[in-house]
């Protein structure tokens, strides 16, 4: 456990983070992009078409990973908010700023790909069903976080406000899920058949796994590189920034 505590401590130190993150970002990008290329080509070119949905089911290779990851990012932002509120750790704030933008983009993409998938499959782009509604609400929550962060000039105070909103929002997510689930089962018109879990062939599953892993790696890299920028911006007047800029 000692090494863990040490790493945790060091991550809180800006110069250590700034230098250390660089190698990680390059590694994550290389691995992630390679996985994404392999997964995408495999998924589009080499898996058999679905018996019922034809080729359009291939959209799930992009839709499912983004939808999952965006949710994970929201939860991570709320956890970082908690860490910031309790320990006032500046790196937690830096993480939040970096992650909310990516989270919003991923959620928007998940919605878009869901709509495109729905057109041939459901016969309509948009249905107020449990999943679409809760993903839409999650996008609104992200937009709220971004708007709040952008509106408060004092960074310390902005971080505190964003933390509280993220925590309240994440506690709300199960309630939203529950209410949306309950509400939307009220009305299921027979013309629309919503996602019976399709028994997925293993050959279809592999590209999905590869794409998910690739996306996670790329996303981690993106967040880390945003964090590097924020750290640098914050510490622009300090000693170590001067040193690392001069030696380059």
């Amino acid at each position: 456990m000692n090494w863990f505590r040490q790493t945790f401590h060091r991550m809180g130190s800006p110069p250590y983070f700034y230098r250390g993150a660089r190698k990680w970002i390059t590694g994550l990008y290389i691995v992630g992009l390679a996985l994404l290329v392999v997964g995408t080509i495999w998924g589009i070119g080499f898996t058999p078409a679905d018996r019922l949905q034809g080729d359009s089911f291939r959209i799930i290779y992009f839709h499912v990973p983004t939808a999952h990851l965006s949710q994970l990012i929201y939860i991570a932002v709320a956890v970082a908010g908690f860490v910031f509120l309790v320990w006032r750790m500046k790196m937690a704030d830096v993480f939040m700023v970096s992650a909310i933008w990516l989270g919003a983009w991923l959620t928007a993409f998940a919605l878009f790909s869901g709509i495109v998938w729905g057109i041939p499959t459901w016969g309509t782009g948009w249905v107020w069903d449990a999943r679409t509604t809760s993903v839409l609400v999650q996008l609104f929550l992200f937009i709220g976080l971004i708007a709040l962060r952008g509106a408060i000039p004092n960074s310390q105070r902005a971080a505190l406000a964003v933390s509280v909103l993220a925590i309240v929002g994440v506690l709300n997510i199960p309630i939203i899920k529950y209410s949306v689930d309950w509400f939307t089962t009220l009305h299921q018109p027979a013309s629309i058949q919503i996602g019976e879990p399709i028994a997925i062939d293993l050959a279809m599953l592999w590209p999905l796994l590869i794409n998910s892993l690739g996306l996670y790696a790329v996303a981690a890299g993106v967040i880390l590189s945003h964090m590097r920028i924020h750290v640098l911006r914050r510490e622009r007047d300090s000693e170590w920034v001067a040193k690392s800029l001069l030696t380059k």
Partner: protein
Amino acid sequence: MVNTTNAKKLLTISNLNVEVADKVLFPNLSLQVREGELVEIHGANGVGKSTLLRYIIGTRRSPNGTLIRVSDDVVYVGQKSGLNPTLTPLENLRWFTQITGSKRTPKELMGALMQVGLGSFMRTPTGALSAGQIRRCGLAKLVVSDAKLWVLDEPLTSLDASATEWLREAISEHRNKNGAVICATHASLGLPAATTLQLGEL
């Protein structure tokens, strides 16, 4: 005047960093305030005077250093009046005694307003008063408070000669009753035996 060396400590600050927006304005500040003392805090604009007072009244918390207030009773008259412009001075003062928990009858509240020269305005909405009158109304809080420690932020702003004189007398009287006063100010109050704390360049 009370003998300050034997008097009880009301406030102890040690190794406090006065921070604003991640910048340390004044590192390792230490300060003790005993009964009967008057501490004047001097310093240029933006040096952290008001911020230091906010640490003392407890609305700001510091990540480092220690700040011990002997008791919770402190009364603060800040840059902002703390008076709602829709309510009258009397109603504002009543609300103040309610949140601080000092028991005062309506008569006593009115008496306090008479003292600061707002006798004929106590039922006018505070927003309709002049800047100086609003300051006077803010200072009336000192009269209706039981607090031993007064924390004043630029109390002389917008005050005329008679109000200034009244404040100086009120401070002297408070010190005689074992109270203490911490006051951030540009111009010295000119009272005897005041300690001066110079913030910023010495």
